[in-house]
């Protein structure tokens, strides 16, 4: 390298550092601003809700029934258990159906066939359909119409299940695809059948990803209000859900929150904060579970 060339390079570096420095700073400020914006909004919301509702949280709040006359003695027992029961039933519905669909699409479906591509595109589109539409669907085909279940818990969880099924399918497919084909080929080469390979190799490998997806899907379902209103979840239910999900009426925490917030009595309105805290606690536990499952069982191939 000649002396002249070296000088030019150094000049270029110096010039760029000055410009870069400013840009670097601006970029970093923009990043911090974005982070701060999201964080601040969340923090304000959390603090506001905690200030309003933390004093409400007690054993009684979780085990008593709603009350208009004595808001201070009111509880969310029926809503809490309704929500938990809804989630369990939704999981029971979406895990086998979602998993089977994902296995079919990943392992069996021939992508060259137009109907398989049609199914794929439809599933991706379904994930973006507004939840109220699922509510209308649930009301027309599950509560009334074809299934005619009535406004019962089973109908609610089937509707929520339909709502989050596309998410489960998409996530489960990703998880199955992440299992390297060398594993499958090895299994097949050793004489295992297609089915044995899926059941003994592919699915166990994909399970942590699938479990995480299911929990995240349920976290979406747990906060849904609009479809539940349509399929007949009710705000004031003075009894816990019937063990038989096809029997009796039920409530859910989002419905309680909505109903409390629109009550003229400010004491009843305050109950919403308590219910929000409980809902967030459940969400936190669920998301924590998802993180745990992922970290504990994730496989590095």
């Amino acid at each position, binding site marked *: 390298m000649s002396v002249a060339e070296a000088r030019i390079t150094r000049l270029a570096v110096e010039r760029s550092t000055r410009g870069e420095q400013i840009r670097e700073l601006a970029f970093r400020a923009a990043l911090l601003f974005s982070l701060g914006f999201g964080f601040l909004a969340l923090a304000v919301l959390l603090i506001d809700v905690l200030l309003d509702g933390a004093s409400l949280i007690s054993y009684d709040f979780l085990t008593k029934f709603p009350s208009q006359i004595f808001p201070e003695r009111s509880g969310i027992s029926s809503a809490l258990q309704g929500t938990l029961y809804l989630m369990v039933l939704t999981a029971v519905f979406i895990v086998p159906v979602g998993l089977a669909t994902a296995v079919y699409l990943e392992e069996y479906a021939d992508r060259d066939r137009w109907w398989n591509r049609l199914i794929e595109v439809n599933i991706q589109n379904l994930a973006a359909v507004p939840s109220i539409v699922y509510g209308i669907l649930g009301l027309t085909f599950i509560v009334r119409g074809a299934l005619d279940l009535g406004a019962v818990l089973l109908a609610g969880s089937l509707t929520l299940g339909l709502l989050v099924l596309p998410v489960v399918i998409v996530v489960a497919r990703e998880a199955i695809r992440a299992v390297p084909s060398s594993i499958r080929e090895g299994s097949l080469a050793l004489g295992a059948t297609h089915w044995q390979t899926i059941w003994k190799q592919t699915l*166990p490998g994909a399970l942590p990803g699938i479990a995480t997806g299911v929990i995240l899907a349920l976290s979406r379902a747990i906060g849904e209000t609009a479809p539940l209103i349509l399929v007949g979840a009710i705000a*004031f239910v003075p009894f816990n859900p019937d063990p038989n999900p096809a029997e009796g009426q039920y409530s859910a925490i989002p419905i309680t929150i909505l109903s409390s917030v629109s*009550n*003229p*009595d400010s004491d009843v309105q305050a109950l919403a904060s308590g219910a929000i805290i409980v809902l967030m606690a459940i969400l936190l536990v669920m998301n924590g579970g998802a993180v745990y499952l992922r970290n504990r069982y994730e496989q590095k191939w």
Partner: protein
Amino acid sequence: MRKWLALAVTAVMALGVVACGSDDEESNSGGGGGSGGDLSGNIRIDGSSTVQPFAQAAAELFMGENPGVKITVGGAGTGDGFERFCRGETQISDASRPIEDDEVELCKKEGVDFEEVQVASDGITVFTNPGLEVKCLTTAQLEKIFAPNSTVSNLSEVGPQLPDAELALFSPGAESGTFDFFTEQINGEEGVQRSKGIQTSADDNVIVTGVSGEEGGLGYAGFSFYEQNQDKLNAVSVDGGSGCVEPTSETIQSGEYKPLARPIFMYPSAKALKQPEVKAFMEFALENHQEIAEAANIVPMSEQQATESQSKVSG
């Protein structure tokens, strides 16, 4: 397999919580031991969210005396409530306006007969931000503000003696019985109202917050929402042709607060009224309507109206 086990444990834990809850339920329903509570059965109530607090308070008091009866109360809105009611999905429908012709038609088609029973009163209250001093508006002035083609943006446009203030308008949304009633009384046709320069919300508390938070805030909602927020709002008297009348429990109950005072209803189906627990509940609600209305922050009806309602239920 450990992974399957982890999943199974999660599911079992979730189920466990639900199962524990079911035990509570049995001990609760058995432990009432009140007086004369040999009635049993389920009563499903749905409909107007304005009536919901009343129905809920009535249900609580009634269930205190009759632990065998389970009453649920929803707040789907007057219209959706009637739709469920006419399909036989509920026994009693709450309504903040009388049933409409097409709803009567639907009920008839499905073979559901019903009684219209007034349970309390309400007066739609027009209120402003305390900083916007308005004593009284005539119905014509209100129409000028809320009419479908209205472009009024400053209060002085509707009357020369009114303050010169930019308006921030708030109102309930189209699904609400309050909206239906207000638009019919003020704009002359149900369901029509200006859509520009106005913020609507299904939640009346949002209207209260909006009006109390904006300098030129003006809006309307059920009387109880004003009553619970008197310190933050200024109620506007309404002149329906015979002088300005202030919205108070008395003027609403007597109907003097024209034309925005309205009865609110429960519609039990004729079939349900034949069930002893439904009949007992309706009679209970009417007998104790004063106390229930107070607990629900709703204006009670007059004794004369109560007697009339009682004759419908018992007859």
